[in-house]
């Protein structure tokens, strides 16, 4: 009655055929990613690798660590300190400004959220150069901000808001804020409102429910935004170059100056390699808490 029939392995397909077929398929998919990898290899890995090599070549053309030894000089130390200061302030500022906005967006009706989202997306779409330029105009001595502050009687005469630390920080905060809001918003949107209702039915006050339930669940987005903003701040060039007025020396600007003013490729390379190492180290350290590949949408 049972349809069991003794195994009579025959036919053209054997185990090695299947293994081969499976491998062939896997490779054909890898092949699809190849052109992209080649582009990134040739235009990113090769140039950066070249700089890596250059960074170990001394003035006499031999292998040396002199480029790195020079990074201990006060001028560079000041740069590193400034860079981390600005990156820290910008990251903190973007958390303080970004969290309430993302929270509001996540609580609004889809329609209202879509409308408010324009305020985040439009700056995000607008060229960094244009936005930096706008801040230059707004913050200048006779600019809008200064004239308001004077007319409101907060200050007696215009204060320098641009070509300095303040201007750089404000400009970078504006450019990077959407990078905080967007991941925060997308992680907050997945938080089920019923959790909060459940918390309040358990007797939690709205404030308590927020800190006990909502905030912990929004942490993945907060990590994503924080990492993104901090890393982008570390290597930021455009805004400090235009709003710093040469008085704010950030890491990336030191690299540029070494190349364009002193033609010192060794020093520039060493600075660049160190910046990359620091960036990757921060990413790797935080990758344990937050997975960078989640940028792809939570795989």
């Amino acid at each position: 009655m049972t349809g069991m029939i003794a195994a009579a392995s025959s036919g053209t397909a054997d185990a090695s055929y299947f293994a081969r077929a499976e491998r062939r398929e896997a490779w054909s998919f890898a092949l699809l990613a190849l052109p992209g990898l080649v582009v990134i290899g040739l235009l990113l890995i090769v140039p950066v690798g070249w700089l890596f090599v250059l960074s170990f070549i001394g003035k006499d053309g031999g292998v040396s660590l002199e480029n790195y030894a020079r990074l201990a000089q006060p001028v560079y130390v000041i740069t590193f300190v400034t860079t981390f200061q600005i990156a820290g302030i910008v990251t903190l500022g973007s958390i303080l400004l970004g969290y309430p906005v993302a929270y509001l967006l996540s609580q609004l009706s889809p329609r209202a959220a879509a409308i408010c989202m324009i305020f985040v997306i439009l700056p995000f779409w607008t060229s960094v150069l244009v936005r930096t330029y706008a801040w230059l105009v707004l913050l200048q001595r006779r600019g809008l901000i200064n004239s308001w502050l004077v007319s409101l009687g907060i200050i007696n005469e215009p204060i320098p808001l641009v070509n300095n630390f303040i201007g750089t920080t404000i400009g970078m905060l504006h450019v990077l804020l959407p990078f905080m809001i967007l991941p925060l918003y997308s992680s907050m949107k997945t938080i089920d409102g019923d959790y909060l209702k459940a918390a309040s039915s358990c007797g939690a006050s709205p404030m308590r429910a927020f800190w006990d339930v909502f905030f912990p669940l929004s942490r993945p987005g907060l990590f994503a935004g924080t990492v993104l903003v901090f890393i982008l701040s570390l290597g930021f060039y455009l805004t400090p170059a235009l709003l710093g007025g040469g008085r704010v020396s950030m890491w990336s600007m030191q690299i540029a100056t070494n190349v364009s003013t002193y033609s010192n490729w060794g020093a520039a390379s060493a600075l660049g390699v160190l910046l990359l190492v620091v960036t990757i180290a921060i990413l790797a350290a935080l990758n344990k808490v937050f997975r960078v590949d989640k940028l792809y949408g939570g795989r």
Partner: protein
Amino acid sequence: MKVPVSIRGLSKKFGSFEALKDINLDIAPGEFVTLLGPSGSGKTTLLQVLAGFVTPTSGSILVAGEELLTRPPHQREIGLVFQNYALFPHMNVFENIAYPLKLRRLPRSEIETRVRGALDMVRLSQFIDRPVDKLSGGQKQRVALARAIVFEPRILLMDESLSALDKKLREQMQIELRHLHERLHTTTVFVTHDQREALTMSDRIAVINNGALIQFDTPRAIYDRPRTRFVADFVGETTFLPVELGTSGGASVFGTPLRLPDHAGAVAAAQSDSWLALRPEKLALSPAASPETNVNSFSAVARETIFQGDSLLVIAGFPDGQSIAVRLVPQEANRGLVPLPGQPIHINVHRNDSILVSGDV
């Protein structure tokens, strides 16, 4: 189209996990076979191997004597109906069903005729121009079916195809599918975890667990003569009582010698790990032990009675504490048989309904 399918020594390993273990299965031409098993049993993997989306580790599948596994999916001539229908959202009903025909470069007029024919068969002719997102679940199901049969595949595969429908519609579709199969006689492999669905629709059922084929038989045989405890448990409500094997070869339960059907005899009894499988609807109650010679009678104590509309479920307990369910038809004649909680009763089962199963899966 009627083709025989024979699966020989089919195995699939995902790393160290054995999803399929040496499956051997012979499907007759035009047969409706159901792969029945719990989720994760390997039934869907087997279906995916048949369809060509999973490459097996070893084995062979012969369709009409010809190796299937060396063909890519698009040359297998297999109609596949997915659990979630997988209708193309950017095409309407006509375009969905015409898709396989367009790929085969049939002339426009022929496509038109065939699509209409397939839609007639699933009784959806008036929906030919509908966008698929404007269809109900049952209608989507039918369109998916029409799309899978319109190119006259050699084999029809259905993966849990009815599980997304509500109970009433599902039962109606089961009958319809059955009728459609009687008309077309395409060799069909149907995958489900729903035992009732399997019993309703199939010519034969292949019960699969942990990647292995446990039993391959007609629905009646699977239900009435399950070979293992797993099969008995999976295809119906069952109470298992431990069987003690006597030195003389006789079997007993709770010290009462068992009267067994002739065919069961030695088969299961020879196993050291044997169980008596009892179905609630095959049991009867009596105040005293049944005097009949063809009946096994066990004493128990009634615990509670549950009214379920079309039946009355009496839960009773054996002296060792194990409980058993007895299903009574709530008709007037049975009224006197419904015991009060705590009342001693006897549970009777005809020897032909006394199934011995082995304890292994």
